[in-house]
């Protein structure tokens, strides 16, 4: 039985399954095969598994070359160290619109013990600035199961897929929506405020919504899932409906999910937005939740953000 709280375990199971069906699938990693669980693909398909050593820059250009020769490469690495190869992602890959998928694991605060150098809080903004790059951030393991196979099988071109590590709460198991690139999903409907975000941190949005419901405040929760392209229609609809948006992300508030939301609403239907995310580096802790609390990425901050917005009229 697969442990649904571990995003990397779910990733490995999907890669193994896809490897059976897709003979051109190749998995590339940079000495984090064990930590990312990518090695399990390698055990099954040793010929199509490449551990290039601790060489992130080479890994990206190498994967781009594999793709040019006909492979369907998936690069798997810690999201923080993929940023080291951003210029390779730009110049070896995105510029030629090559069909390489990049899975960034251990994102946000999910690598809690390793501290600031290992916690990736800027990757979304870096990736979404690239012209051909698409960005998808699943909320939980169920989201990974509903999106990753389709992405690998039928979405062409470069795509950044941001996942966590372990201790991920399952929050979308009760939903039947199917993944579609560029679509967001309403996890909770509401009309006073809308919380829009992506990734495991959405569990805090649901908590906040439940809490405010007790006071008679109706709070929508939107799982954006696809950050680039982003669901402009859905964002506009909820901006019109609630007039107040809280943007939530396990990432810097500069240029990330909140930035993407603001870019859309500034054009479509400007409303006040409260940004809940990070603005500094992380640190070591005993658990991810402890870091969320320490840096104010939790239901309490979201509730405070909602209250703040409710003070002003629409």
């Amino acid at each position, binding site marked *: 039985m697969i442990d649904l709280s571990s995003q990397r375990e779910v990733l490995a199971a999907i890669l193994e399954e896809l490897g059976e069906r897709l003979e051109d699938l190749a998995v590339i990693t940079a000495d984090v095969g064990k930590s990312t669980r990518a090695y399990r693909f390698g055990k099954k398909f040793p010929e199509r598994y490449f551990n*290039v*050593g601790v060489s992130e820059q080479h890994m990206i*250009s*190498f994967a*781009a*070359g594999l793709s040019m*020769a006909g492979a369907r490469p998936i690069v798997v690495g810690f999201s923080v160290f993929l940023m080291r190869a951003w210029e390779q992602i730009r110049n070896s890959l995105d510029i*030629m619109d090559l069909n390489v998928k990049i899975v960034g694991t251990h994102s946000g605060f999910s690598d809690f013990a390793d501290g600031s150098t290992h916690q990736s809080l800027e990757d979304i903004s870096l990736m979404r600035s690239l012209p051909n790059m698409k960005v998808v951030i699943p909320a939980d393991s169920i989201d990974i199961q509903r999106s990753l196979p389709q992405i690998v099988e039928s979405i062409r071109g470069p795509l950044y897929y941001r996942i966590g590590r372990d201790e991920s709460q399952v929050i979308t198991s009760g939903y039947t929506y199917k993944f579609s690139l560029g679509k967001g999903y309403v996890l909770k409907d509401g009309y006073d405020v809308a919380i829009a975000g992506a990734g495991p941190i959405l569990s805090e949005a649901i908590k906040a919504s439940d809490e405010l419901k007790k006071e008679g405040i109706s709070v929508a929760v939107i799982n954006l899932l696809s950050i680039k392209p982003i669901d402009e229609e859905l964002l506009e609809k909820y901006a019109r409906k609630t007039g107040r948006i809280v943007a939530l992300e396990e990432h810097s508030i500069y240029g990330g999910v909140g930035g993407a939301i603001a870019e859309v609403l500034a054009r479509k239907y400007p409303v006040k937005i409260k940004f809940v995310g990070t603005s500094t580096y992380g640190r070591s802790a005993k658990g991810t939740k402890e870091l969320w609390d320490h840096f104010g990425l939790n239901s309490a901050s979201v509730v405070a953000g909602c209250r703040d917005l409710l003070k002003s009229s629409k």
Partner: protein
Amino acid sequence: MGVKGGGWRSFSLDEIGSISEKAEKTLKEMNKYDEHIHLESSLSSLKAISTIILGYWRNSDNPINRDWFILSKGHAAPALYAVLAEVGLLDKEELFNINKVGSPIQNHPDLSTPFVGMTSGSLAQGLSFSLGISTWIKIKNGKGRVFTLMGDGEQDEGQVWEAITHAPVMKLDNLTVIVDLNRRQLDGSVHEIKPKDYMPLVWKAVGWNVIFCDGYNVRSIAQALESALASNLPSVVFAETSHIDGGR
């Protein structure tokens, strides 16, 4: 005299030599139209480019059975254009439009140009890219070969280390890298900025077949390529081109 490696058309080494000389004149002419082209670096790479393209490169519709030419030192692209124009694959008049905003002739190689296997320009990335191509060819038992041209200044990039240590592990005997030893880098003399005399020893130490040749002599380049193609190791050819007043 033909070449054993077998190209897409059969040019003799003498023909390649005379085409190179014509291309050199074209290059100097191009420089009059746009002084932003990297003239010296294009001149020093010219004969390596023409020997590979005219003497060795083989085509196929199947990406694993065709040969690939990766200009990792992308700034030598004008030399490639000049050679292609001499054999009728590019319009010579178009070359003089280089860097005009509407022209397909870019200062660095673009996939839309014949023989260009990678949009390049950012140093060392072409080497890793070449490894990716030759790896997939090998795994799929393809017949394709990969030729990659680098600069000596380019050897400063950390990614070169990441890549050269990987190729022998993958046993890439279908990969040939040519390093243009023109002893110059952007800011001046290689010797003054960061000496690279030890680089052949480094490549050798990590498992490459290391070959030297005269980069201004088509016969010497062809001989080096023959020996590279015959080797069961990945090969690197250090092509000496610093003697500006000599062979050229």
